[in-house]
């Protein structure tokens, strides 16, 4: 600690002294800025390079600024190439600005700062805010699907308000591989509160050099979201958007109808169904799911700025109903981003979002809908819910399940920037993440069957509050002289996460609609949970550019977290990167290559996503016993699940090499990266051996394994204008290779770890050295025993008979035992890609987005978990029913040995999907200017228009936690969405 402080002090003094020695006499220069055709440009930003001093041109394009001879004055304006003039002794400088080549001088947001794209040494991908508006969704991450190389976004549920799973560069860990989000400087785990229309741009930081500034939390990648703000000197712009879409299930799962089901069950128990012709059929999926469900989306924003302030205010309303009745998500979000220039040296500002949300969850009826007997009607003759065989009546579950959640979320920051001594800026920013949410669940009295009933009304309510704050202090040093450019930042941050949850439940409400726990209810139970986590960090980065073509970056972060104890509390995360802009070299003279840069980086980042109290063995109460003549419950408390005091950070060691090429004035750009990431000491929840005494379904976190991810990413763009036609095509692709390379000593397990518990005793996923994380594991099916002779000739499990599967004797020991289970496939795709194209012609815009994944497998859990007689998928019609009938489907059973874990449940999950299709039209200005509208844009759009895949479930995208990744246990159906909308700019 002391050593670090003294190093920083020395560096600071060194730079300071260097600067002070160069003070000279200041002078005022004036001038005018025009474009190439002579039109004056107001609002052009003029600043002295390497400092925060600057001004803007007035409405006539005139400016005046105080400079010191030798300063470099930069003129920059959106859409134009920036110009730099070194001041010697002139007092008037007039500038003619040229429209810029696309791409190279864009500014990219990185952690704790920005950098020009051309100076970037790390691997960062940018997505513009407008690209996020093509998909009507409550979560902005949905729109990233197929847009960023190396990023896999899986919308694993169609439930309203659900967030997709985002994976950056493979799966680096078990516990929680989610990246972190940084919104307005606040570090978050989710962005459910954010309205996509308020987003200016998203930067995805992928390699160690770019994520190192987030140290202990950067291992899974960082997604930085910059929200919109006004521009100085811009007149107010009012923007209004309205969209209305309808969701529909495009693909129903092919289940048996009544007749087919009756015939199938009769094979198990003959005589169960007689008079097949008189059977009524119930198509349960169509009975339960709505045909269409609407989404509505409205926003209004106003932004602009004077010379001393700029502002942005946006209001958005989102309302989605789900295809399963009673599921919905509604959100009102308000965003206010303002900045005030108190004087030339001090800026203060804030970025705030308030979001109110209301969400209704449907009962989890997907499984019971697929299991319900098609021979049973939904209602009986009196109109009551029929006692469906299978797994309960799903319509009754929906009817009697009332589960809602609503609340307020507020995220934002307040900051102040102070510039001094021409080269320094001190910034202090206080960020908050607050959430207050109330949940309620009410169950009325009902009776359908003894196993689907409720004898007393039940009410449970919970209130959770979360208050996180983040205080960041950074000192930025910016210096440029001749061929040297240096941008450095040092900082100190402190962070606290507090949460508290309070819940209560009771039975026997006095009236069903008096849903409060204040009544004289039976058995009021309350529980109260709370946790606190704190972090302290020191950070440092220096970016050095020599002659505009040699780039070096060094980053260091030191984090301390309260989640870990003792020696494991602090972690150090360094990284280095270098780049070479070959195209800037004098010797480089290839005419059609407008940009060529190679870069590389290496670094260590960490992951700390583990439960706050993981290292403790907590005392659990409410473990009482009944004693006494009067039979009373007496309290009891004892140890809960064992904690692990040895847990520590996960550390990801990542190396990255990349090349950026621009051809034909950057009309065609190509960016390619190759990376290798090794994550060590991965935290994973493991089942402990039973003799530890933690009971059933208990898991403890250990630093258990090392995983390697490597891949190749590419991003190709082609954009061009021919007269009135503008077109743009982008393709991204990434390969993923994932391998577990070591198992940790802490667990003692050096063979494998079990994941993917189906809840029936089977674990179908495994972790072992040499294979990808969580690969599927089970028996390999080799055929079906056709007759007794075959049964006797081959090794088989004792309970198997004729018509059952023949499993492969993998270890060739003449027996079929659990040791004959083997690798069956992996849920991690080998290749992820996206392709999008936009064409604009005279006011019409057509945009298509494709995305796809190849090489992943899915385990059909909903087919495999059978605890009773359920309905089947159509494939059972091909079941074995006599010698020679089939060699791939076993005989019909309600459950049992053929439902052991095997590759019969493995399906290819590769898919190719038309993710969105948008057709838009800008109404001609002749029409709009009459109404004082600057731009009116109408559009039709379709989302998830079609999906090509072999998998027969609702969707081939089965994400989820690493433990259950790739297992389809009955996901909420993902829908196709079609709609219209209008966007007006005033």
């Amino acid at each position, binding site marked *: 600690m002391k050593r670090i402080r003294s190093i920083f002090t020395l560096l600071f003094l060194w730079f300071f002294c260097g600067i002070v020695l160069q003070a000279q006499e200041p002078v005022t220069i004036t001038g005018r800025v025009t474009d190439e055709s002579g039109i004056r440009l107001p609002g052009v930003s003029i600043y002295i390079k390497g400092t925060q001093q600057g001004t803007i041109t007035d409405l006539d394009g005139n400016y005046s600024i105080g400079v010191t001879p030798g300063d470099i004055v930069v003129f920059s304006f959106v859409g134009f190439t920036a110009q730099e003039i070194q001041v010697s002794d002139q007092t008037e400088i007039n500038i003619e600005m040229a429209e810029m080549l696309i791409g190279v001088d864009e500014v990219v947001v990185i952690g704790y700062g920005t950098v020009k794209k051309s100076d970037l040494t790390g691997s960062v991908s940018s997505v513009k805010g407008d690209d996020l508006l093509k998909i009507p969704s409550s979560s902005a991450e949905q729109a990233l699907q197929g847009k960023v190389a190396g990023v896999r976004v899986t919308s694993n549920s169609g439930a309203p308000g659900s967030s997709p799973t985002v994976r950056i560069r493979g799966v680096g860990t078990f516990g929680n591989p989610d990246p972190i989000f940084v919104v307005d400087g606040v570090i978050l785990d989710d962005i459910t509160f954010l309205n996509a229309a308020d987003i200016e741009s998203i930067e995805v930081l992928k390699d160690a050099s770019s994520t190192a500034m987030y140290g202990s939390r950067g291992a899974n990648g960082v997604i930085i979201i910059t929200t919109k703000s006004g521009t100085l000197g811009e007149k107010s712009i009012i923007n209004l958007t309205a969209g209305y879409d309808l969701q529909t299930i495009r693909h129903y799962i092919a289940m048996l109808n009544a007749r087919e089901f009756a015939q199938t069950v009769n094979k198990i128990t003959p005589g169960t169904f007689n008079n097949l012709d008189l059977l009524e059929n119930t198509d349960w999926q169509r009975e339960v799911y709505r045909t269409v469900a609407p989404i509505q989306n409205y926003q209004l924003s106003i932004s602009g700025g004077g010379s001393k302030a700029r502002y942005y205010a946006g209001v958005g309303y989102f309302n989605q109903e789900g295809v399963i009745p009673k599921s919905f998500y509604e959100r009102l979000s308000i965003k206010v981003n303002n900045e005030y220039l108190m004087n030339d040296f001090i800026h203060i500002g804030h970025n705030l979002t308030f979001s109110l949300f209301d969400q209704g969850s449907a009962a989890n009826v997907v499984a019971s809908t697929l299991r319900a007997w098609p021979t049973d009607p939904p209602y009986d003759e009196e109109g009551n819910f029929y006692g469906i065989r299978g797994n309960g009546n799903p319509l009754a579950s929906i009817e009697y399940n009332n589960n809602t959640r609503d609340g307020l979320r507020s995220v934002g920051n307040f900051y102040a920037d102070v510039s001094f001594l021409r080269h320094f800026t001190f910034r202090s920013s206080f960020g908050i993440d607050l959430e207050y949410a109330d949940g309620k669940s009410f169950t009325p009295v009902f009776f359908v069957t003894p196993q689907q009933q409720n004898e007393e009304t039940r009410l449970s309510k919970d209130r959770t509050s979360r208050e996180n704050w983040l205080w960041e202090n950074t000192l930025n040093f910016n210096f440029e002289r001749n061929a040297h450019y240096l941008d450095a930042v040092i900082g100190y941050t*402190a962070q606290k996460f507090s949460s508290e949850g309070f819940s209560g439940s009771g039975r026997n409400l006095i009236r069903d609609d008096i849903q409060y726990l204040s009544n004289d209810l039976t058995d009021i139970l309350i529980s109260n949970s709370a946790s606190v986590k704190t972090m302290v960090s020191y950070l440092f980065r220096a970016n050095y550019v020599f002659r505009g073509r040699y780039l070096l970056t060094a980053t260091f972060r030191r984090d301390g977290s309260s989640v870990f104890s003792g020696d494991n509390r602090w972690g150090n995360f360094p990284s280095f990167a270098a780049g070479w802009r070959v195209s800037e070299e004098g010797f480089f003279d290839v005419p059609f290559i407008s940009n060529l840069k190679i870069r590389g980086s290496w670094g260590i980042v960490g992951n700390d996503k583990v439960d706050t109290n993981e290292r403790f063995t907590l005392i659990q109460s409410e473990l009482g016993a009944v004693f006494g003549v009067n039979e009373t419950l007496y309290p009891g408390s004892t140890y809960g699940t064992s904690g692990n005091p040895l847990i520590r950070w996960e550390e990801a060691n990542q190396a990255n090499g990349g090349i950026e090429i621009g051809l034909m004035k950057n009309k065609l750009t190509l960016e390619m990266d190759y990376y290798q990431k090794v994550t060590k000491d991965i935290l994973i929840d493991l089942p402990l051996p039973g003799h530890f005494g933690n009971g059933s379904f208990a898991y403890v976190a250990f630093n258990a394994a090392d995983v390697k991810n490597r891949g190749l990413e590419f991003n190709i763009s082609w954009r061009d204008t021919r007269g009135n036609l503008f077109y743009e095509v982008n393709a991204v692709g990434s390969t993923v290779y994932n391998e577990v390379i070591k198992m940790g000593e802490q667990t003692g397990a050096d063979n494998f770890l079990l994941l993917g518990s189906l809840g029936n005793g089977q674990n179908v996923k495994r972790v072992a050295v040499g294979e990808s994380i969580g690969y599927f594991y089970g028996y390999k099916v080799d055929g079906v025993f056709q007759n007794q002779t075959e049964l006797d000739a081959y090794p088989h499990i004792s309970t198997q008979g004729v018509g059952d599967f023949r499993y492969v004797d993998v270890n060739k020991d003449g027996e079929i035992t659990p040791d004959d289970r083997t690798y069956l496939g992996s849920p991690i795709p080998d290749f992820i890609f996206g392709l999008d194209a936009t064409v604009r012609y005279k006011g019409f815009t057509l945009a298509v987005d494709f995305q796809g994944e190849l090489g992943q497998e899915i385990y059909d859990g909903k087919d495999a978990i059978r605890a009773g007689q359920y309905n089947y998928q159509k494939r059972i019609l091909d079941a074995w029913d006599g010698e020679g009938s089939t060699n791939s489907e076993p005989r019909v059973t309600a459950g049992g040995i053929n439902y052991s874990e095997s590759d019969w449940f493995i399906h290819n999950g590769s898919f190719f999907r038309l993710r969105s299709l948008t057709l838009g039209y800008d109404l001609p200005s002749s029409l709009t200017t009459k109404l004082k509208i600057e731009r009116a844009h109408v559009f039709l759009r379709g989302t998830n228009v079609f999906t090509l895949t072999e998998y027969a479930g609702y969707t081939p995208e089965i994400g989820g936690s690493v433990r259950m990744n790739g297992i389809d246990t009955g996901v909420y159906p993902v829908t196709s969405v079609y709609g219209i909308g209008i966007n007006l700019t005033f």
Partner: protein
Amino acid sequence: MKTIRSFLYFPILAILLGCSESFLENPPLTTITDETYPANENDAYLVTNAAYNNLRNWWIMGGYPLADIMADDQTKGSENGSNPDLQQFENFSFSPSHAYVLAWYQTLYQSVRQTNIVIEKLPAIPMDEELKSRYIGEAKFIRAYVYFTLVQLWGDIPKITTINPDRTVARSPAAEIYNDIIIPDLEYAAQELPEKSEYGNEDLGRATRGAAKALLARVYLHLHDYPNAQNYAEEVIQSGQYSLDPDWASVFSLEGENGPGSIFEVGAIPLGRSQGGNQYGNTQGVRGTPNWGWGFGRPSWDYINHFETEDPRLDASVIYLGEVLHGVLIEGSDLTSDTTYDGLGNIVEIECYNQKVYVNGATGAQDNWGHNRRVIRYADVLLMAAEAHNENNNPTQALVYLNMVRERARGGNETILPDRTETDKDALRQLIWEERRHELAFETIRYFDLMRQGRMAEVLGPLGFTEGKNELLPIPQQEIDLSEGKMTQNPNWN
């Protein structure tokens, strides 16, 4: 206010103290950790109470009657074709990766841990020594009971006597478990625990000296150590603490809870599990009309036909369709066949329910959550004494105890259940075993009786029992997988 203050206070504090470690020190907020618990007399009380709690766990005594369904007295029950997972226990078709086998094993060891906590931690607590010994005695009784269940079901098992065992262990021979844990624990308990009558009213239901001795008798009988079995059974009988309730049927009623013949019971009240309820009664309650439960654990046809004529215990143990109980007509479930026949027209099963878990006056399915599980009864001790005496060549004394049980069952009706007079050892042994079946049905005794009597293959073979294999449950596959090769599987289970 507190929130606002913490907003302002912490940042300033943090910057002033630099990298203050105290800012990063955050113990759990809502509970304490094992570092400071148990520390005082109240903690000792709480941690001992918690050791009883797990007995009502679904996987020990709070769920399906797994061992009884495996034996020949109860079938799976409920609807035809439902719960194939449970059906696999009835016909012995389950495998080592069956979820129930794993959960049963894990939950029993959870009780081992909870009792180890008491036994290991209490000695250091400054408190009344007599009370401390009693608490430790109670924990040792429960630990012995749990280990006895483990060792009977699985044979050789890991021997765990500390709170933090090694991660991978090998199985210890069953004999070691008996000699190092079960028997010494029960001997300690027998010495330190008070007799049933010495407990205050609020403590009724805790482990007693009599319970420890009765369990010792059971253990020794299982080990075929008849002299010791006889001694401990005699000590319980001679203590005068217990007697047979003259009304057999009321032994299982609400009024009969903690009755004169109750040696060890698990108390429960008709609420949810965390509030003191036990679902064991509910899983076996009448299904359909009236809606008293799920209907599992159906008395088997073989059991029904096994009784001597007019033994009133049969009617009192089985609820038949058409019976009227406390004014309620038993109609049963529409989705269960009233009578099930085999291919030749013979009855194989009828729809009926376990009356021992019936709570008289039940009005709904929640009532039988209050059923107290009878673990050890005086009648059992009498029959154990009879069996031990017989094996020790005292048929006369054996007959005395046997006939005490029959006399109570007779209920004053001298025309039924005549006293036994057989003195031939082998014949008397059979009579005693039969008496046990009629007296102690559905009390998780039959399965273990057949085990120690060596009759499992003979009696359960027709139900799917495989000799040489099913005498023991398989070690759960997950345990074998996690043991890195240190644990072996039971014979013929691969």
